[in-house]
């Protein structure tokens, strides 16, 4: 006893959870922000799912993918990235609101309480993880040791599940704080009302600010406000951004010097560039829409894939496999279902906005198809196989 008293010179040090004197860490604020955040996450999940299955369709789906609307992928992937960016202010505001709950005392009341806290931990982890990795992916920065696509896809399910569970757990609180006149809201101090509205207005303004400064990368009329997006519609060879340059794909002028197009099918044939250019040419307006969120529309001129396949004796709606000259890369060999090959908008393009394709845009010939992710708009195509 004596010993202990001597040692205690200062005041006794005890670890106590911090107390939060600030206002607005309440259920009404959490509900008002949370429903917008929930909506943004739902949009991200749905559009992400669409993108995932457009990029890597299972066999049963590949033939059924629709080529219309032509601007479909541009909208869904633009929304995916825009909703993800808009969710960042919402997530920060939501976490600020509920932060004191991290320090509830006692930390664990029961098994149920423990499970509930665990599910919230998963929700917080998955949402910060998804928005963080997604944002870094748009600048092609990968500081983590795992591959982005499968992990972003898996954690998306984890996030959606944790969110649905969270809504189920908090359902009574959400409904009792849904509006300004809801019973739970009315029990909160009335003088907090104006302060809360001012906070929500600030968060809404932040959502507007981050959206306005980035959305121009896909919503081209707003390109003048594109200050902070990793892409800009006006920056790129021939006025169109490029995801993979010829240098990165190791395609040089020497590789395309004596280029031939081989089309295989019941009546296989080979064409030189001049012979290909002598076939009936069509001009279509289609966007390049990248999985990283940027997109831009352009005018493409070339030969209909329909016509190339028909010339090889393949029946309408035949799937194809296109092989690129690039040496390696996950997208060197592209497969395209009958829904796309049968669409008159799907071209093997030779020209972009009236000019011959530059090497970075896939000279001598590239695929351009409606409603498809940019990575499958295969460049430097040297071989097309009818898949019968």
């Amino acid at each position, binding site marked *: 006893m004596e010993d202990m008293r001597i040692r205690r010179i200062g005041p006794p040090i005890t670890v106590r959870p911090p107390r939060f004197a600030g206002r607005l860490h309440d259920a009404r604020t959490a509900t008002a922000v949370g429903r917008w955040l929930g909506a943004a996450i739902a949009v991200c999940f749905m559009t992400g799912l669409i993108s995932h299955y457009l990029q890597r369709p299972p066999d049963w789906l590949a033939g059924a993918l629709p080529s219309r609307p032509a601007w479909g992928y541009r909208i869904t992937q633009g929304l995916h990235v825009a909703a993800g960016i808009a969710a960042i202010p919402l997530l920060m*505001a939501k976490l600020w609101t509920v932060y004191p709950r991290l320090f509830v005392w006692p930390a664990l009341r029961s098994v149920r309480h423990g499970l509930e806290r665990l599910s919230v931990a998963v929700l917080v982890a998955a949402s910060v*993880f998804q928005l963080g990795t997604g944002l870094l992916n748009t600048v092609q920065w990968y500081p983590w040791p795992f591959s982005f696509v499968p*992990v972003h896809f898996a*954690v998306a399910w984890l996030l959606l*599940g944790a969110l649905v569970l969270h809504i189920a757990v908090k359902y009574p609180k959400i409904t009792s704080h849904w509006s300004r006149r809801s019973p739970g809201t009315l029990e909160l101090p009335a003088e907090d009302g104006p302060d809360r509205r001012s906070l929500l207005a600030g968060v809404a303004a*932040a959502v507007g600010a981050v959206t306005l400064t980035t959305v121009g990368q896909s919503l081209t009329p707003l390109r003048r406000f594109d200050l902070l997006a990793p892409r800009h519609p006006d920056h*790129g060879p021939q006025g169109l951004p490029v995801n993979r*340059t010829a240098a*990165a794909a190791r395609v040089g002028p020497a590789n395309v010097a004596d280029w031939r197009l081989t089309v295989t099918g019941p009546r296989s044939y080979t064409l030189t560039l001049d012979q290909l250019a002598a076939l009936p040419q069509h001009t279509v307006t289609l966007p390049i829409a990248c999985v990283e969120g940027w997109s831009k529309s352009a005018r493409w001129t070339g030969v209909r894939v329909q016509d190339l396949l028909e010339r090889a004796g393949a029946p309408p709606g035949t799937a194809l496999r296109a092989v690129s000259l690039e040496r390696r890369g996950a997208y060197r060999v592209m497969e395209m279902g009958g829904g796309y090959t049968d669409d008159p908008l799907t071209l093997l393009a030779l020209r972009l906005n009236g000019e011959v394709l530059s090497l970075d845009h896939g000279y001598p010939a590239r695929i351009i198809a409606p409603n498809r992710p940019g990575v499958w708009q295969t460049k430097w195509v040297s071989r097309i196989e009818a898949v019968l």
Partner: protein
Amino acid sequence: MRLLLGAAGIALMTVGLSLLVTGGQFRDVALWLAGAVVLHDLLIAPLVLVIGLLLALLPARGLLRGAFVGAGCLTVIALPVLLAPGTPRNPSVLPLDYPRNWLLSLAAVAAVTGAVLTGRWLSVRWARRNRAGGRR
């Protein structure tokens, strides 16, 4: 209904977990997931709370808080384009002058905040003068 919703949530989480486990990168991902929580709970949140406490000392707190939230969020989304390592060999990736644009966006927040403050101050003065004029 709530039970069904909760069960659906757990089922979806199971899908995600099984995708992670079968993906073979579970340990790394778990580490980064935990890191995300640590990053927020031990760094971002305390920082925001301290700034919030400082803001509470100032007049026009609501407006300045909005400005802080806006500037902070713009900074967060600008961090990747500002800090991405290496010079991209692709001229259409990161083509803009991001430090300049980031400062521009912060200046715009400051300008809007200043305009609203001035507008409020003018309208208060206007109301006072009108009241004084009515008395005369």
